[in-house]
């Protein structure tokens, strides 16, 4: 009971659009996106910060939506899986996932896509082993991961980190999200 509190207004940018909604202090960002904004593409697999299904991008960084409170996202730019594709087109990462069959049940997929998006914005070229480590914070119980690695590597080659070549993926992202190769 003590953690409950009066809802407050949260204003933020989601996938490049201004959004506003009510959140209790304890409402997580993932919950806020899902329940308040109706963006159910961000999934919740553990609420313990372990599985990565809830990963979204906040001001260019991959963030666990179950570990950040909605009020902490006030005034920030959030990107979710719903913002990846342009009208009628797939983002190269989505297309690469489709081509490589990098998903089965699809529950982990939004989180993996957003983690991979940030990784590819950091640098388009990854070795398979480095990518393996980078993606190891996102659990998938279905695929065994190797097609996910195939997909992300292919998307990197296709320029998926360039801020969204189908038009909109990078719309909410600041330029700082596009750091060059290390």
């Amino acid at each position: 009971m003590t953690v409950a509190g009066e809802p407050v207004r949260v204003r933020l940018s989601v996938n490049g659009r201004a959004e506003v909604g009510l959140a209790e202090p304890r409402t997580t960002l993932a919950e806020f996106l899902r329940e308040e904004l109706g963006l159910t593409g961000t999934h919740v697999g553990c609420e313990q910060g372990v599985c990565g299904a809830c990963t979204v991008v906040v001001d260019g960084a991959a963030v666990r939506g179950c570990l950040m409170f909605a009020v902490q996202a006030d005034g920030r730019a959030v990107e979710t899986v719903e913002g990846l594709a342009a009208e009628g087109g797939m983002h190269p990462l989505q297309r690469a996932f489709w081509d490589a069959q990098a998903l089965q049940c699809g529950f982990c997929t939004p989180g993996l896509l957003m983690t991979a998006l940030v990784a590819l914005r950091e640098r388009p070229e990854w070795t398979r082993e480095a990518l393996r480590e980078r993606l190891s914070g996102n659990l998938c119980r279905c695929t065994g991961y190797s097609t996910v690695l195939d997909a992300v590597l292919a998307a990197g080659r296709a320029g998926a980190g360039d801020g969204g070549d189908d038009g909109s993926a990078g719309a909410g992202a600041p330029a700082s999200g596009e750091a060059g190769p290390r």
Partner: protein
Amino acid sequence: MTGTGYVGRAVRRREDPRLLAGRGRYVDDVTEPRQAYVAFVRSPVASARIARIDTSAARSAPDVLAVLTADDLAGHCSGWRGLLSWPGMVAGEQTALATGVVRHVGEPVALVVATGRGPAEDAAELVEVDYEERPAVLDPVAALEPGSPLVHEELGTNLCFASPFGSGDVDAAFAGADTVVDVTVRTGRHTAVALETRGILAAFDRDERTLTVRISTQAPQMLQTLYARLLGLPENSVRVITEHVGGAFGMKAFVYPDEIAVAAAAMLLDRPLKWTQDRYEAMQSDTQARDERVTASLALTADGRILGLRSQVVSDAGAWSMYPRGCVTEGVQVATIMPGPYRVPAVAADLRVVYTNKAPLAVYRAVGHPPAILVMELLMDEAARALGLAPDEVRRRNLVRPEDLPYTSATGNVYDSGSHLESLERAVALLGPDGLEERRRDAAARGRLLGVGLAAFVELSAPGAMFYGAKGAPITAHDQVEVTLQPDGSVTVLLGTPGQGQGLHTTAAQVVADGLGVPLEAVRVVSGDTGVVPHGSGVWASRSAVVSAGAAHAAAVEVRGRVLALAGHLLEADPADLELSEGVVGVRGVPGTRVPVHEIAAVAYWGTHRLPPDLEVGLGAVGSYAGPPYTFNNGTHVAVVEVERATGLVRVVDYVVVEDCGVLINPDIVDGQIRGGVAQGLGGALLEQVVHDPNGQPQTSTMLDYLVPTAYDVPDIRIEHIQTPAPTTTLGTKGVGEAGTAGAPAAVHCAVNDALARAGAGGVFRQPIRPEDVLDALDRAPASR
């Protein structure tokens, strides 16, 4: 088949664009107007009598609509026993909320309904329950001692089921053996950890008296039947909707007490109720598996031929026999699958399934196969060491050969076809044995021991009615698929089975496009709503590529026949001379006569005046599957591991799969099943275990404690297929969904023991193989000092 040839092609999955866009519809994604939320009060102790429940504080908490206990549900939801007609099996009566006694940590005791999830969870903490704790039963062997506390006092015993299995003169086999090897193996208690937790959204229409249940399940029609029965509704008034399911792996194939409690509460309260399980609850209340203690011995001749196999299996069933599949399937399969792909003339297995105060044990991907195959392969390696034979050679000498087929195992399983020996030869060739010495030296230079493990196996797939149906559960193999050719030539497929990510819409579309003779793009597949689709038993036991595909093919062929009959009339040709391919009907050998199928379909719907009255015009048909009782796939896995001497850490560095699941409908989808399955098996070998403290408290309550494999843990997997068609199934397919999980624990385990043996150390005989087990084995090795 009409030869347009979609079957066998790796077409991209039609399920994926929607899922990739974040527009899947998993249960928690759907919200009903006036929906309220449920939270559960669960037992914090493993065994206790409930002395008192006081719900008054919770009831008066803000936003709370109701607090219900077993007493409140008593007249509204019947209890059940997870009993199948195995001779002598016993099971306690279970209710949706615990009645008087709790038998494992996490058992639901009370249900709180509030206008929001937070308030419901807050109020659940205000429910006061007095538990009179009793000593918990945790060790299934001690549980059989006289005087042990009882999990179910009404049963008078903790023994759920006991039975011998096998045939042949085992005593003579052992008496005449030149060599006998034995192993005692303990496998860890697992749980499925589907990424999407369980959940339900239940709404009751008081005027129509209809219940609509949106639920994350593998078996919607089975739930329709059982919910109707338990909640006292006609079956035509229960609708079960299953859109996307975020993984299930056998764990979502039951009537769960918490889920049906939500449905009952929705009926009582006249409000849509949603419950979304959290991970903490999942770790306490999802079904568990693989908790087996096996002692086995193998009798061989001096030249390495198997004479007989003996085993004692103790299966830790946990507190309940889950409804309706029960808790004995795993143990039965451990006992009966163990001879695997080998010619074992005599088998004597002795199974005991025992109740304890843990979350229920039930089916989980590859049910019983992983421990069975593990034990057999460990025995084969022990035999190889004892006889001075190479591991592949002792297997080669015993594998079922083509001339032995069909082969009936000493436990009564019939292998109708397969490539048991060939798959081993291919796997050994793929591994590239010539490079092994170099890989070994390279690993040694990095402080690591390289080990190679083989697992040759068979997997039972697509079981028919005798598995459960004949034993009293509403589960069979007579699934149905409805195929309708629409007036414009598009095709609607209503699939009786749902999916949990296997790509069943894609494979069904491939089968129908071929069977009917239309382009793949013309086919739309619908599933997951029992108000719409025909009958099905759900998705489990590697069955869809056989059962669902068989039914889809039957329906498609029936519709094709009707189209051709109509076309024969319209074209004034003998239907036998007509062919239908890629949506065009033509007279065989007469190039000029090509009529698009939509022109014929349009007549069947809107131009029936052009047809004689006796011609059947409907272009929709329901096909059903009536195949063999089961079909076995087979294969061989090879794992290569590196064991770090300093830390005992094991890393799988290479993995080869040679799989024979008959005809492939979609090779990429099959490979996906194999890779995911191997990952789960690898998890079982090295990482996964539900751990309890001495009081029965689960210590693995988050995904940080119960480790599932990450991208870092799973190697790339090399897969090769042999396609030996099943002689008895419609398309020659065999199931494959569980094969990866069946073979991997043994291959990885044998590889670790091989690495240890090369360092002069004895093997490890428990799973998961923890670093401490490896270090222990190395420490005890005389050669490593």
